[in-house]
């Protein structure tokens, strides 16, 4: 297998507290050596001067739509979008059709990923059969087949009893339970955040309380069971405060935030553009402030895309009738760099941790670091390049993004998975 020598870059590996200009030698799909002035005559040289060399980014929350909605995304196209966005690993949600609640679906996803996927794919199994929230899925068997977490994805586990059991049962297999926190009775027919703008626009609102009630319940159940809870895409001030409380009390609770929830507010809905419709909805400026604070002080662990591809014609309807969700794999890294690092909210190292060692730790993946011997998954970043987001150049099959036309500073320029360059924004010499 060929060798790669990544030369002259600023290597940032938060897992090893490393931030200096070093060379990186990759051989046999592993990080072989890391140090100053490395030479290797057989290795292909990658000039990383002016670039950041980071462990491969991990997106722990995306929807690859296969099996079932291959018109929106496939494992192949989703992996290509991931690679183009700087991700070397993705964890895909089980809300496929059929849902990933059985060994055969997990096997199918892994087979497709092996045959056609540019990046590592980690399936998340359904917590309950059919993601119906009635009885537990065969989590033991799913774990054996290769899932890294359980979740009912967009279908919050409504019964507190079943959520308790899921935390207890998944705990036997050292699997986190990821929950989309939403009290569906409270959110009812809501299509956007409940607040001034929902009143102005006459659209039914989803109150922040619908999320916070379930965040609070889940934290309490995590405390009861000592189960590992991961809160998907938190979006409100109250959720951040609850999470901070849970962490202060030493509970096994982590959380992720999406780039759109730290970038946009519900004011964006004023155009009735359905690319501003997602669940949880875009919240208020105050919520965004608290989320940024939670990112800064380490309360929030992970940035995840919640990549949710939808076909254009299904999105191009009356606001209330459009499906929730936007694509995110190809905008997550530029948004995090532009909004968090360039604007000085957090250090680059902290941002990289939120995409690498943190999700790897939660999902117990042996990735997310550049330690010698680790899998050679590497993401190269250019902090000064301004990228104009153009949905028509996306590798994803879908185009549903509110960021079309945005200029963002910073992007991933080269993606290495298992020692192979799977994506490069420019031809490599």
């Amino acid at each position, binding site marked *: 297998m060929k060798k790669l020598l990544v030369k002259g870059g600023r290597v940032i590996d938060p897992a090893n507290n490393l931030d200096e200009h070093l060379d990186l030698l990759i051989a046999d799909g592993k990080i072989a050596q890391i140090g100053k002035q490395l030479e290797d005559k057989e290795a292909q040289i990658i000039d990383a001067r002016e670039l950041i060399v980071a462990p491969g980014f991990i997106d722990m929350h995306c929807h690859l739509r296969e099996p079932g909605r291959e018109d929106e995304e496939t494992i192949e196209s989703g992996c290509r979008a991931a690679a183009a966005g700087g991700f070397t690993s993705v964890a895909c949600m089980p809300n496929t059709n059929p849902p990933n609640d059985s060994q055969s679906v997990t096997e199918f996803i892994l087979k497709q990923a092996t045959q056609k996927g540019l990046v590592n794919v980690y399936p998340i199994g359904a917590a309950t059969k059919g993601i119906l929230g009635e009885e537990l899925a065969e989590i033991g068997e799913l774990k054996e087949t290769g899932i890294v977490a359980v979740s009912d994805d967009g279908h919050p586990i409504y019964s507190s009893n079943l959520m308790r059991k899921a935390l207890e049962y998944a705990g036997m297999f050292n699997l986190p339970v990821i929950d989309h926190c939403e009290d569906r009775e409270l959110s*009812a027919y809501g299509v956007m955040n*409940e*607040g*001034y703008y*929902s*009143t*102005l*626009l*006459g*659209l*039914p*609102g989803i109150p922040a309380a619908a999320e916070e009630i379930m965040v609070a319940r889940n934290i309490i159940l995590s405390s009861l069971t000592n189960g590992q809870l991961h809160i998907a895409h938190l979006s409100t001030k109250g959720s951040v405060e609850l999470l901070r409380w849970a962490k202060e009390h030493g509970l096994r609770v982590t959380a992720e935030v999406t780039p759109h929830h730290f970038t946009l507010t519900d004011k964006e809905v004023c*155009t*009735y553009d359905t690319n501003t419709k997602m669940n949880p909805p875009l919240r208020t400026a105050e919520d965004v402030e608290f989320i940024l604070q939670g990112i800064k002080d380490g309360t929030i662990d992970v940035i995840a895309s919640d990549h949710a591809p939808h076909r254009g*014609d299904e999105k*191009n*309807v*009356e*606001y*209330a*009738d459009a499906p929730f969700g936007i694509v995110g794999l190809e905008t997550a890294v530029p948004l995090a760099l532009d909004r968090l690092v360039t604007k000085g909210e957090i250090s680059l190292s902290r941002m990289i941790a939120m995409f690498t060692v943190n999700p790897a730790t939660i999902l117990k993946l042996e990735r997310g670091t550049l330690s010698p011997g680790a899998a050679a998954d590497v993401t190269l970043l250019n902090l000064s390049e301004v990228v104009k987001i153009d949905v028509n150049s996306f590798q994803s099959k879908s185009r549903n993004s509110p960021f079309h036309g945005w200029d963002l500073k910073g992007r991933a320029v080269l993606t290495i998975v298992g020692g192979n360059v799977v994506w490069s924004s420019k031809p490599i010499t």
Partner: protein
Amino acid sequence: MPLNRKDLLGIEPLSVEEVNLILDTAKAFKEVSTRDIKKVPTLRGKTIINLFFEPSTRTRTSFEIAGKRLSADILNISASTSSVVKGETLIDTARNLEAMYPDIIIIRHSRAGAPQLLANICRASVINAGDGAHEHPTQALLDAFTIRENKGQIKGLKVAIIGDILHSRVARSNIHLLTKLGAEVRIAGPATYIPVEIEKLGVKVFHHIDAALEGCDVVMMLRIQRERQDKSYLPSLREYFNLFGLTPERLKRAKKDVIIMHPGPLNRGVEISSEVADGPYSVILEQVTNGVAVRMAVLYLLMGGKYEEVVS
């Protein structure tokens, strides 16, 4: 002065000057409806489509009569007889209608923002005839016209809007319009029917009708549609009438020359007693009459008509 807009999607984006232009033009058109021959040739050769996805008597008929009195060719499409029942999307319906070169499409739809969606893709002017709980601009304009006729001006008046504010597009459009023109707007209704942060639109919120009525110049009653809603909003219509129904007794708190308005259809005995609806203070049927004049003005102005030409 012309109205430099392709569409009329709501009151919120309009300037005070634009509102006054429409109201002044409507005043000039009102006389047409009282003639023996109720027709002027102003919009001859223009095609107007009334595209109604929700039931309507007043608004649809009013637009149709307005169009006909301006000599436009106007036709009606209702959801039950359209391709919507075959699963056609709004966008596709609009594109097909566009292909027949209409000049104006008037849309009523149960979803907030549907007229915006249409306006984004249509060359034709789009008029919002009510979209979900968002806006119903021509209703607010005809209400303002009626208030102006009765009170001379709107500035400084105390106006109470009472009922289900949460689901009401009429309330929203009226709040925008009346606050723009300088009225003091009060809203009142059960707490379950008051949308969050509505105060930011410049209104005062009341949960007791008596306090809201105190010293009012204008009272607008809204329809309660409990049969179409989830039952968690109200215990019963009986209790609603007891707490918020407009009766002659309660009306005594308002000014002596108060006017009572209602966008219709009325639920007698629910939000308003028959004595009030049919009583001396009611201008409910004047509203309907004025609706035609206001809609003639809107159609005329959107087609590039100038106020000065109507007056002369």
